[in-house]
């Protein structure tokens, strides 16, 4: 075998220590699905806890008040921002998925609709977050 390559000789193979490139680089569709999953599971666990704490009122009103009282801390206030962020994204993206499934041109405009979802999410959060944080931190 004649080793004659243009401009340089092939270097000996080395074993790379870097483990990379294993993550699939999807685009808007895949990342909206990932976010939809994450927010969906997060909302599910919130609802689970929410049903349990609401059901406490049947056990004893004092226990219910004690649990609800612990929610009125700034940490939970910030948590509520995350909760609303998740629900708002899940709701708007849910409408996008319905349009993809039932509107004949839905899949053609899925990328545009993804950015519309992000835009609506930003507008909603801009309206909600400052007002909510003022309430949380002014107590």
């Amino acid at each position, binding site marked *: 075998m004649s080793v004659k390559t243009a401009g340089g000789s092939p270097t000996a*193979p080395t074993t790379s220590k870097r483990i*990379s490139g294993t993550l*699939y680089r999807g685009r*808007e569709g*895949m990342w909206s*699905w990932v976010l939809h999953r994450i927010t969906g599971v997060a909302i599910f666990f919130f609802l689970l806890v929410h049903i349990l704490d609401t059901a406490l009122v049947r056990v004893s009103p004092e226990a219910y008040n004690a649990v609800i009282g612990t929610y009125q801390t700034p940490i939970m206030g910030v948590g509520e921002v995350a909760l609303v962020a998740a629900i708002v994204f899940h709701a708007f993206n849910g409408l996008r998925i319905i349009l993809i499934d039932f509107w004949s041109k839905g899949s053609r405009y899925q990328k545009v609709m993804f950015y519309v979802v992000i835009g609506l999410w930003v507008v909603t959060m801009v309206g909600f977050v400052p007002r909510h944080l003022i309430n949380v931190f002014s107590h």
Partner: protein
Amino acid sequence: MSTATLDAPTQDDAVQSFTVTFIIRRFDPEVDDEPRWQDFDVEMFATDRVLDALHKIKWEQDGSLTFRRSCAHGICGSDAMRINGRNRLACKTLIKDLDISKPIYVEAIKGLPLEKDLVVDMEPFFESYREVQPFLIARSEPGAGKERVQSVADRARFDDTTKCILCAACTSSCPVFWTDGQYFGPAAIVNAHRFIFDSRDDAAKVRLDILNDKEGVWRCRTTFNCTEACPRGIQITQAIAEVKQAVMRGKP
């Protein structure tokens, strides 16, 4: 006029070449327990393809590198692989379209059993393909002239899904298929679509029943990875959506 134009190009005229680093996920079932990454530096021209790089590595550096390719021109669908985190055909991916300031990662497609280096076992993929009965099933005799005449509009109805070359780039880009190998996958649904919406075919109902399954079209989560990955530009998610609608209507 001078005839010197046919002379061999001088050093100044030579097309510029680049040293490109490829990091390839290797796996030899007889030696390795786990796949490993290996670097290769290859001298490439901007107009070369990733397949040319694999050839250079195999022919000049390491003859044990294993991959599939047949036609090498984007028709046979043998060389689908994950290049820089996206499924593509190595023979249709030009070096100039990749960022060669960083290494180029090449690995086998995901979701199918890895056999060696870039070769996977395609049998589960073809099994799903066979299950949707991808052949014409007609209950009537052909008309006069022994042809099944079809209008241009009827032919255009399924034109997009006739382009499939069964390279598995779509099915192995699907997050649902990665975690649930029982899912039919985009390619099988595309090929079912090709016959479901064919006016000459009489077995649409059968195929819709096959795909109206827990592992059928309803597994699709519209991530659009298949549409992005398809080297033939088929609007796969659109085709799956049309099959979903047909399942709900009960007819094409």
